[in-house]
């Protein structure tokens, strides 16, 4: 378990809903609802956080929700209890998943791989626990390839990294490097906010 990262997100749990619960969730609601509407089978949701995304899960699913921060999951408890389906919440590091190979049919992430310290290592773990042909669905913000956005996000990443997410990640490259095949990417804002649809090769 990466204790430094766990401490960072335990700390962030105190203000997470205040910061993200209103504007960001409302703005991204249609996109997230659309992405999560494809949930079926045995689903792993990585970085459940305080459970803000649960509002966009389709009802009746059986979902395993992970987060590195036990404090975040404590905050998520009322949302988990209110979900009309079954969510099993577990505190776990994505770099070290305690599941056998090929356990899940689908894996979902939401603004997760901007913060995972070793993104390719984490994604390799996801590929391991995903069944061959299984689906990886990600709602992520990344760095930009376009000036001036790229420059400003690059400049500020050393600061944002200390507080939470990095602003210059190349998540789609990391997804490929971890061995996934990208089916398509849907761009939501600039080339920064996007939905990534990938598959674990059979």
């Amino acid at each position, binding site marked *: 378990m990466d204790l430094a990262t766990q401490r960072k997100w335990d700390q962030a749990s105190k203000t997470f809903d205040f910061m993200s619960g209103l*504007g960001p969730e409302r*703005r991204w609601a249609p996109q997230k609802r659309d992405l999560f509407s494809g949930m079926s089978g045995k689903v792993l949701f990585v970085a459940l956080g305080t459970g803000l995304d649960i509002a966009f899960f389709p009802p009746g699913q059986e979902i395993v929700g992970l987060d590195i921060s036990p404090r975040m999951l404590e905050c998520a408890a009322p949302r988990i209890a209110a979900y009309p389906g079954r969510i099993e919440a577990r505190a776990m590091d994505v770099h070290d998943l305690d599941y056998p190979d090929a356990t899940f049919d689908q894996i979902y992430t939401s603004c997760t791989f901007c913060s995972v310290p070793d993104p390719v290592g984490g994604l390799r773990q996801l590929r391991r626990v995903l069944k061959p042909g299984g689906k990886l669905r990600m709602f992520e913000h990344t760095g930009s390839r376009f000036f001036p956005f790229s420059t400003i996000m690059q400049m500020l990443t050393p600061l944002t990294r200390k507080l939470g997410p990095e602003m210059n990640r190349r998540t789609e490259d990391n997804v490929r490097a971890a061995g996934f095949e990208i089916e398509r*990417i849907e761009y939501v804002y600039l080339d*920064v906010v996007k939905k990534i649809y990938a598959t674990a090769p059979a």
Partner: protein
Amino acid sequence: MNDRLYFLGGDILSNAGTGVLAGLVSAAIVDTGWHAVLAVPLCVVACLLLSMVVGPFVFMRYFGAMEVVVPNLLTAATTAAVVGARAAMVPYPALQAAWHGAIIGLAVLAFTRYCDYLIRNALNRAETR
């Protein structure tokens, strides 16, 4: 209010607000005794840091995440560069600096939205091919 109008209003408010703050801060830091080569980077750094606080804690909370943070940062840097450089050359009243900051904020928002339209359309079109 529907979401489209709410977020448009939020984007306008957050960019104009960031521009006003960046204008005021830059005009307060620099006066005509400064060399512009020193004034501009100092103002840019100060205003980016300010934007990193004001953006997430004030505007992002109500109006969105990256859609707010990215144009706000760009507004802060641009306003700081323009107001900082001008304040090093001529006396710059605070009210005028704030007004110029607001205009720069709105111009940056328009630029960012246009870039969003171009980039998203081009990339989404390429994905569907």
